[in-house]
């Protein structure tokens, strides 16, 4: 039985369909990614999972329980880190955790112990008595995450947990998320960092305009849909374009740059560089970002 089962989920705001029939399932112990451009409907989907946003249609089951019947019980077993900070600015760092535990009816002594563990886990112990108002953005994000774990949830739902973090904090969070996964905690994650999704997610979906474009394991998806590697050619001339036209491969022009998607091996790469010289060519492995851009296009979202 999956931990989270989302079935034909739908939500409209007036004439705008934010979530347009999304179906996926997250298995126990899995880290599942929800990717998509701005406005794709990720946050709306997540908000429906904890009953913040009422859904228009579809079925939602968590832990095998129906959200319409057992919302309270479901909510006591999940932890949510919202996209926007919702820390209590009137309270200190530690109080934010201890106070939040009360909403889950966790006894005071247990809550305090749990809070101290989490402060330690997220390297916040030295800031325990600071007011939340004075924390930097990155520290706030870490505290949001710590707070999402205060009830020892079986499923944590993280809406862009690493947005706005410096590389150090991001590395720390990745490590912590990996540790959570080892503890058997199921994770649903949204992120705009493709590298993060590649590293952390066992499976993921890419959504756009409220619809799922693709689902699967990141490495496999990239291999199947983009290829092995990408050859980037800076400032290509007519000769290069001519040669490429004869080859059987996908070519994309980005202003003054050319991207050549190579299916397997470096055979084509060797042949091309022999003819062109390697001066302006860079070969790199195909990435999730390539897949993401291929599926969702390169236009900015409004």
């Amino acid at each position, binding site marked *: 039985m999956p931990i989270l089962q989302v079935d034909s989920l739908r939500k409209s705001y007036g004439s705008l369909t934010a979530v347009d029939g999304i179906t996926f399932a997250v298995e126990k112990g899995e880290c599942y990614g929800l990717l998509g451009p701005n406005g794709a409907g990720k946050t709306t989907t997540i908000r429906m999972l904890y009953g913040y946003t*009422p859904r228009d249609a579809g079925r939602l089951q968590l832990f095998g329980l129906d959200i319409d019947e057992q919302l309270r019980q479901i909510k006591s077993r999940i*932890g949510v880190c919202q996209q926007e900070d*919702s820390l209590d600015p009137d309270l200190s760092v530690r109080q934010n955790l201890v106070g*939040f535990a*009360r*909403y889950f*009816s966790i006894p005071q002594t247990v809550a305090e112990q749990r809070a101290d563990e989490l402060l330690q886990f997220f390297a916040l112990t030295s800031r325990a008595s600071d007011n939340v108002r004075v924390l930097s953005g990155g520290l706030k994000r870490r505290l949001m995450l710590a707070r999402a774990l205060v009830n020892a949830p079986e499923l944590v739902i993280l809406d862009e947990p690493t947005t706005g973090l410096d590389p150090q904090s991001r590395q720390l969070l990745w490590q912590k998320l990996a540790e959570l996964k080892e503890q058997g905690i199921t994770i649903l994650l949204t992120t705009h960092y493709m590298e993060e999704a590649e590293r952390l997610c066992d499976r993921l979906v890419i959504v756009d305009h409220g619809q799922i474009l693709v689902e699967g394991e990141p490495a496999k998806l990239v291999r199947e849909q983009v290829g092995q590697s990408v050859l980037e050619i800076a400032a290509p001339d007519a000769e290069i374009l001519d040669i490429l036209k004869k080859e059987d491969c996908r070519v994309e022009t980005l202003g003054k740059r050319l991207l050549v998607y190579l299916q397997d091996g470096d055979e084509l790469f060797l042949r091309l560089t022999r003819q062109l010289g390697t001066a302006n060519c860079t070969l790199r492995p195909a990435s999730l970002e390539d897949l993401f851009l291929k599926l969702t296009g390169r236009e900015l979202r409004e």
Partner: protein
Amino acid sequence: MKLPPLAPISFRCLRVWQRNFEIYRQNWKISFVPPLLEPLLYILAFGVGLAVMVGEFELQGRTLSYTRFIAPALVAVAIMYNAFFETTYNSFVRMYYQKTFDALLATPLNLEEIILGELLWGATKSLIATLLMGGMISLFGLFDYPGALLLIPLALLGGLCFAAFGMICTALVPGIETFNLPIFLGITPMFLFSGTFFPLQNLPGWAQGLAQLLPLTHLVALVRGSALHLWSGGMWLSLLYLLVFAALLLPLAIKLMVRRILH
């Protein structure tokens, strides 16, 4: 206007109350000052300054100094202010700027419990103000006991009424500046024309009738009647008015907030 049915409400609403109470307790030194000092200012201004001009006058067969007349009204006004400002500005900040309700909705609490917790907290602030102000006023011998003890339940009842009124405003205003409107159209007229600073009988007939529609009029009547032992049958009607007002506005406030926040 279609309103959602209420979800079941449990003891969990007290957790929200508790959060607000603890923050209040942390700042109690500052929070306690206004309710303690305010009556002193009024007693000084009215008792020393204005009372000379007004002198003593007769009310329900008793001779009262002007200071004694307005002292209970000061408490009634404090009940209104404390609850109303808590569930307007403070609740709005928590809802809109601090996203507190967003965070709480991811816990076993439902929105109905969160809003009820806020309303109960608003009424509690009225109660705290009443205890502090009432205590201070009693030091000057301006209240009669045991009648003045009734101010405790009256503070809670009045507090709930004005907390609900405030919360309805919070559910309807587009932004925090808009609270000026209900204050200008509702709170300030009530402050002036609810029998607070002069007996309603001084008003023309039509205005007296209008004043009877205002909740503060009835709260002032109850508080003054109790604190000065000026009992009258009309107090039962005032009590009934406030009970009905609370019974109607509390669920309405919760429903309007649910409609505002969940969409």
